[in-house]
């Protein structure tokens, strides 16, 4: 029997030896200590892990963010609402879109929008770089979100060949092989990449503006982003077109126009001239 019981009890119990009977007082004291310890553990974990935002109603804004809020309240509040929570039918909430989104939209002149339409178009920039930083700081402090790394040249160590492959797989469906952009449904479009800066391309990939999908760092790593930007800036935007005038790089459609406007017109005039010499 005994050996059977021993076999049934766990290894730790067998090592500890036979249980020693303890007094009731000691048992109660131990229970109280364990309870206090468990409560402290739970409380501490809650204090450490629970979202702290709800704990404070109004986190103090940094100076830049406060300046940004002043700009926001003048230029953006109509569509994005009093606390950037968005206005139904006019503009989306900006909570959590991050500084990257602000930087892309405002530095390319898309925001403030001229009017409600299928898509905001690139236009002359309204705010100075400092003001854009302040707006970005405000939106960032509202709800966090993606941020573009520092620096103006984000493709310094990019690999053009890898970038080209990634570009053709991920970007060319909409922005076209040439980076010239293309049509989407119902008046929406993928814009030309020609005027885009490194930071704007990076911010667009991070934030997925308008109809563009988000290419987060899990899908396209920061190194791959640098490769893509290198391909766009060094190949698409600065390729000298070895074949001559590129006809806008719209593919065969403008080539078809060229053969009629240049080739056929020139040769019809030549045939008029030759037939007239008799």
């Amino acid at each position, binding site marked *: 029997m005994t050996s059977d019981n021993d076999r049934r009890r766990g290894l730790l119990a067998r090592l500890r030896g036979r249980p020693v009977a303890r007094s009731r007082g000691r048992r109660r004291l131990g229970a109280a200590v364990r309870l206090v310890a468990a409560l402290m553990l739970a409380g501490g974990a809650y204090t450490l892990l629970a979202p702290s935002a709800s704990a404070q109603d109004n986190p103090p804004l940094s100076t830049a963010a406060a300046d940004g809020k002043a700009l926001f309240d003048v230029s953006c509040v109509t569509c994005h609402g009093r606390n950037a929570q968005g206005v139904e039918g006019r503009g989306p909430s900006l909570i959590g879109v991050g500084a990257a989104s602000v930087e892309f939209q405002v530095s390319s002149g898309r925001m403030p929008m001229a009017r409600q339409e*299928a898509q905001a178009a690139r236009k002359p920039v309204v705010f100075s770089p400092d003001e854009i930083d302040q707006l970005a700081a405000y939106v960032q402090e509202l709800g966090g979100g993606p941020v573009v790394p520092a620096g103006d040249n984000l493709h310094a160590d990019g690999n*053009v*060949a890898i*970038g*080209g*492959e990634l570009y*053709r*797989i991920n970007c*060319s*469906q*909409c*922005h*076209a*092989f*040439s980076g010239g*952009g*293309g*049509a989407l*449904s*119902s*008046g929406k*479009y*993928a814009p030309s990449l020609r005027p885009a800066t490194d930071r704007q391309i990076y911010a667009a990939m991070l934030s997925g503006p308008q109809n563009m999908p988000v290419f987060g760092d899990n899908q396209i790593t920061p190194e791959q982003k640098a490769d893509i930007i290198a*391909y766009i800036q*060094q*190949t*698409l935007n600065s*390729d000298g*077109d*070895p*074949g*001559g*005038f*590129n*006809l806008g*790089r*719209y*593919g*065969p*459609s403008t*080539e*078809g*126009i*060229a*053969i*009629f406007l*240049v*080739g*056929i017109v*020139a*040769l*019809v005039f*030549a*045939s*008029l001239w*030759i*037939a*007239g*010499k*008799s």
Partner: protein
Amino acid sequence: MKRRKFDVAAVPGNTARAVDDRFQVATPLRRLLNKVFPDHWSFLLGEIALFSFIVLLLTGVFLTFFFEPSMTEVIYNGSYAPLRGTPMSAAYASSLDISFDVRGGLIMRQMHHWAALLFMAAIVVHMLRIFFTGAFRKPRETNWIIGSLLFWVGFLAGFTGYSLPDDGLSGTGLRIASAIMLSIPVIGSWVTTSIFGGEFPGTIIISRFFIAHVLLIPALLVALISVHLGLVFKQKHTQWPGPGRTNGNVVGERMFPRYAIKQGGFFMVVFGVIALMGGLFQINPIWLFGPYEAWVVSAASQPDWYVMFLDGSTRLMPDWEIFIPIGDGYVIPPLFWPTVVLPGILVGLSTLYPFLEARYLKDYRSHNLLQRPRDVPFRTGLGAMAITFYVILTLSGANDVIADKFHISLNAMTWAGRIGLLILPPIAYYVTYRLCLGLQQHDREVLAHGVETGIIRRLPDGRFVEVHQPLSAPDEHGHGELPYAGWVVPKKMNRLGALGPAVRGFFYPIEKPAEAPVSPGHPPVEPRAERAEIGSGEKQS
């Protein structure tokens, strides 16, 4: 004094005599060289196609020296940095080598491509000339059919050539072609697998297209072109009606020497235009499209212009899928109608048109004189209708580029194409028909009343009338009796010699203009007499 044994000036004559002694070619050759061609600029449009075909053969042979028609995967290591280290097919790598590493390769590739576009464009323009002037009528129906076939064979040549570089664009085109073949009911999957050697893309299609592109299709083109030209020789050229020109003769220049020299010059001009375009305008930058991968499709992927109407018809086609409940069920995909049925109808209609028209008009005589488009309004209207139909389809093939660059909704472009395809061709027919009738009426009016001189005469009773110059002696009503001869009616006074002789030279005179003779209609202008002061008539002191 030693006499010269060798007389250089006599060499051509002696050689010719020697050749004739052996082969007896003088009589047929004289007949050939004396053959008469009518001279009109519109007869040279077909030559543009012929000459660009010669350029295609020349540049194409150059390209075959360097092109490797194989889908074996290689790692690119040429001089185009943005693709270095990328795995790709040997065909694409060798196309890149032609573009970047072969001396003169890029301009040859571009000339080849421009010449292909020009070949097809010239075929279409030439065909329009034949159509609108009625040159396809009996006895030339066969040549019309051969010409239509030349368009479709050229279409195949263009498509196979477009597929050869194996870049992203040509692979996308091949993918669509395989889908079109798959859409054919019953035999579709067998057609596709036998052409591609299995599933798309397989490993054999580039080699097969290469042989088709450099051997089979060019041989067919050469054969068709030879028969086409042979029939022009045999049946003689059509000509415009005019003085001395009848249905039974040909008025023009002898083939040798003037016509041949002019044609040689025109070939040089065509070659020059193609070379200029190949050197100045970049066409199909294959290095930007990258190697073809099944998961890579660029925006604005379009076929060349002569295939674009099929792309357009596909884009405009609603998604009407026909489900036939036989056995497990059978589906005719919507792609079948715009890409197989529509071209089938177009081939049938275009080749049979001469017979359809002859039947409709009950006109089975031979015609060697051309008609002005205005004189056959229904045919001109039909042509305008066909052009409108084709242009709408072609524009719809590029509707995403148009939508993007002109800031129009792509959906609006699609619907505009769908509605326009149904509504605009009849409108084009009606407008063209009325225009033709109006032009006819004006011709008859000028023949009856004379040319407008631009001189307004005031009659004693105060009315103003315009003075007309009759073209023939008028009858008692002031009407001419000239019949319409089917050719240009002069409508401006300078066509009647009212102006002095033209000063020769382009932009600036190369001769001193002669003193213009005073026209009897315009008496020499005297300086204006001093006006007397208007007074009451009474003499003032």
